[in-house]
């Protein structure tokens, strides 16, 4: 089975392990993720703050490329990329005039009917029904499922389940054998782009998230967004200095948890690439 | 040569647009004399055969106007009118009648100025389109044929 794949910049850089793990689990499940040829930047958070046309054209080009590759379903693991692609698809479908303008600008046809999946939707559709067969070692950990903002907002377009208190990741983790904890910071802001400019803000915001997760008994925080991951993991020193304590709870991608449960090694899952050491070898 | 003065018949409902046009009067807002109003209880009552009759009798343009959606005095008459208009429009188009000659609008009892504006724009639009004789000719021809 072949499904389209849009990695985006993070997955080729700071969150290589996210790409490695999603490709690894897909391969093992017999799914080939085919990268869109000649893909470009999704526009990230910068474009739509500066130039509306650019912010729509950039994702639109990726959508058009996917169409010309004959792709019908597209997996977008990065939450930010997913958000931009879905928002663009929505905006163009709402505005026929804009759609034809953009198609003209791109000089590519654009039907705009692609099915875009984030990582949770991808897992729900292609892994959850086959978990019994795929899982070798249940991931029996107490985990905090952290969704962040971009997977669930804006609700009018994304239509996430209970966007103030989403459950879809919790459900998947539970099916892996994990015990998702009940906590309050599932969709709180991690500090996002302040990671670069004002690290202390990330320290405070992410610190509150990590603290609540640990207080509620989480042994790991599971994420589905490269930005969330880097703030909770790479910015741990800032978090620790805000909390005035050393917190060691690891942060991992949901795809890595699945990789472990499917019997892959920590290296295959890319766990060695994290700043906060992850090791579940005792339990798994 | 004097300017072409189109004949425009306005089919309006008693409760909103007729009252709105009354307000145009009480507010002394002027509009072209070309527009003449026929009063119906509700836009739901406006059988579209009446519009064809108007064209057959020499109307150059038609306005159909009633209460805004959800404001119908009879709850849903204007929804029926709207649905009928959607169907009728494509049928007219198919028949070769220029749908630009029919202006469909909502004018509430509080929109006196809007009524004047719609009346004037319709007159201008129809003036640009010129006299409408095609349908009247067909009607006259059919009448003659029927007599033969």
């Amino acid at each position: 089975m072949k499904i389209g794949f849009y990695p985006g910049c993070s997955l080729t850089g700071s969150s290589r392990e996210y790409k490695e793990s999603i490709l690894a689990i897909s391969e093992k499940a017999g799914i080939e993720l085919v990268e869109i040829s000649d893909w470009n930047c999704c526009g990230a958070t910068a474009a739509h703050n500066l130039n509306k046309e650019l912010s729509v054209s950039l994702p639109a080009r990726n959508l058009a490329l996917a169409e010309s590759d004959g792709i019908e379903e597209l997996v977008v693991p990065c939450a930010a990329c997913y958000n931009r692609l879905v928002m663009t698809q929505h905006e163009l479908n709402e505005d026929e005039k804009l759609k034809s303008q953009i198609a003209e600008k791109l000089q590519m046809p654009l039907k705009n009917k692609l099915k875009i999946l984030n990582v949770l939707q991808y897992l729900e559709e292609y892994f959850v029904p086959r978990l019994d067969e795929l899982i070798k070692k249940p991931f029996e950990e107490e985990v905090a499922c952290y969704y962040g903002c971009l997977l669930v907002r804006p609700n009018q377009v994304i239509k996430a389940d209970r966007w103030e208190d989403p459950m879809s990741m919790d459900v998947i983790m539970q099916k892996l054998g994990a015990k998702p904890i009940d906590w309050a910071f599932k969709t709180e802001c991690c500090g996002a782009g302040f990671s670069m400019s004002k690290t202390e803000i990330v320290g405070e915001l992410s610190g509150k998230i990590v603290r609540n997760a640990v207080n509620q008994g989480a042994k790991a925080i599971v994420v589905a967004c490269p930005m969330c991951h880097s703030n909770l993991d790479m910015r741990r020193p800032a978090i620790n200095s805000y909390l005035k304590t050393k917190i060691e709870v690891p942060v991992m991608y949901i795809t890595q948890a699945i990789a472990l449960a499917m019997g892959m090694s920590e290296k295959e899952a890319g766990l060695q690439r994290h700043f906060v050491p992850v090791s579940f070898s005792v339990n798994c | 040569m004097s300017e072409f003065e189109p004949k425009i018949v306005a089919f309006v409902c008693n409760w909103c647009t007729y009252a709105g046009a009354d307000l145009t009067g009480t507010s002394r807002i002027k509009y072209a004399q070309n527009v003449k109003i026929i009063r119906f209880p509700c836009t739901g009552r406006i059988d579209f055969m009446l519009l064809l009759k108007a064209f057959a009798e020499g109307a150059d343009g038609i306005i159909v106007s009633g209460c805004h959606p959800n404001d119908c005095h009879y709850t849903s008459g204007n929804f029926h009118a709207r649905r009928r208009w959607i169907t009728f429009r494509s049928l007219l188009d198919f028949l070769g009648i220029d749908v630009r000659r029919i202006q469909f609008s909502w004018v509430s009892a509080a929109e006196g100025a809007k009524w004047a504006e719609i009346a004037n724009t319709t007159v201008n639009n129809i003036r640009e389109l010129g006299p409408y004789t095609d349908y009247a000719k067909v009607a006259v021809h059919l009448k003659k044929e029927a007599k033969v």
Partner: protein
Amino acid sequence: MSRIGVFICHCGENISATVDVVKVAEEAGKHEGVAYSTDYKYMCSEPGQTIIKQMIKEKGLTGVVVAACSPRMHEPTFRKACSEAGLNPYMCEMANLREHCSWVHDKSDATTKKAIDLVRMLVEKVKFNKPLYPIKVPVTKTALVIGGGIAGIQASLDIANSGHKVVLIEKDPSIGGHMSQLSETFPTLDCSQCILTPRMVEVAQHPNITLMTYSELEKLDGFIGNFKATIRKKAKSIDEKLCTGCGLCTTKCPTKKIPSEFNAGLGFRTAIYVPFPQAVPNKPVIDKENCRYYQQGKCKVCEKVCPTGAIRFNQEDELIEIEVGAVVVATGFNVMEPSEFPEYGYGKYKDVITGLQFERLASASGPTLGEIRRPSDGKIPKKIVFIACAGSRDPAKGIPYCSKICCMYTAKHAMLYQHKVHDGKSYIFYMDIRAGGKNYEEFTRRAIVEDEVNYIRGRVSKVYEENGKLIVKGVDTLLNARPVEIEADMVVLASAAVANPGSEELAQRMHISYDAYNFFSEAHPKLKPVETNTAGIFLAGACQAPKDIPETVSQASGAAAKVAILFSQDELSREPVVAVVNRSAPPVYSTCVGCFMCATACPYQAIGEELITDRKGNVIKKVAKVNPGLCQGCGTCVAFCRSKSIDIQGYSNEQMYTEVMALLNDE
């Protein structure tokens, strides 16, 4: 041959200043079928009307066209004048020369020509007018009131005191509604039950009121003055005549842990129960869903202890048919299910409660006897947070509207809390304080100034538990605009007021309309606030939109007055502008083919079936029939009819086609 009189009005100079009225009269006089035409300075004045009356008699006029102002202004005036001269009033029409001509055009030949065209149009129409007679319908002088909350109670008492019979039905075992659950009422802080219970007793004792509790409307047929209501009287499993209300059964019932509806789930009741001590009627019912005997076949303890032998396990629901002339719908509202707020933790944390639950905590008859104690451990909360607009004004929760009562009751709650817990601290997160109403603003100011309630303008994003405290995360949008966190012992959600479950079906059963939120729609938002668009059905209270007690009571009295007006007549007289299905001689009988497209188009369910039979009673044809009592005269059916068999009096096909033709044939 028609003999039509045309009367052109100058309206002082309002018409004559821009229209050449003399010429209009002159042109009209030349028109075929016009027997007389004239112009006069003020047609609507006494002398003007006299001219019309004289000419009707002198010239034997068969129809009249008055060309003056808008018919919406003076049509009744001129029709009355015609009728006084012996002409059927519906033979009189008006041409609108003022609002639609003289006032909107400058003086010119074109303006005069338009006036001539308009007069010609109406003259041609009148030729096809037919004498019409007002429709008479009898009135059954009994009112049905649905819902026994304060709205239904007030409406019932007012109608009953005006001398008419009332049947009041209530779905619960007792009347009283939400008002009986309230602790104190704003802005006076008088006890809700103290002012309500005397009214409840009055209802039960009133000779004109038949009270049916534990009963629901099953079906409503008919039309204004002549409704037929079917009421389902649910089995109470007791013989009400024998029961003395001693209450022994309720103390002995072994099933004791059923969440009490009256206490909003904060206390328990038994399976055979009286909802609250002051209930009217004060006789128990058995809740079959929770009764040990009905569920498991064994128990019957209540039967054993009942001193009068009033328990009836084999009792069944009864369907009762009654005839009523008017209906007052007073079914009230509900509070939004707070499970819609996972972010506020309702259901997850015991100490996050709704405003209605707080009412029960603060009520002297409540589970804590009026002490503010939190549900989890019974401790007195020292820090309490109220969240206003929990759901209201939040399109994301599907409720863009304001629930209207929450600003006031939240202020009241905080006040009651401060009065009862002197060392406590209370906070209210709010969007705006909407305190429009007599003494309302003063009341909220008192909460802020005297009782030192902390108002924080901003919304709450999250409530979560940490170290035994409820952390309320919100924002203060004033001054520094900073995020705030409060460690609270208890959180009260002012959850939105929503329509009762099942109100959609109830509306459909009664053929009244409802809005996007399932609140019932009034006939006109300003001028007909208690009427529905179905004649004879009126609205009272929060079933129409969220409202407080004074507003509810006023509306209920308004609805009662409407019913009394209706009942002041023995017969109803209605405008004969209604649809009729044509009838003709055999073998056609009617051109109606019985497709009933008209019935699907009718917004009033006014079109039914009629069977045409021969002398032996064999059905020859099934045709549509319009009920003139229900028809409101919109004419949508006329445009729908494919065989042109249905027509509307006053706006008939003949009349409308003639108008179109006359307007355009100006040669």
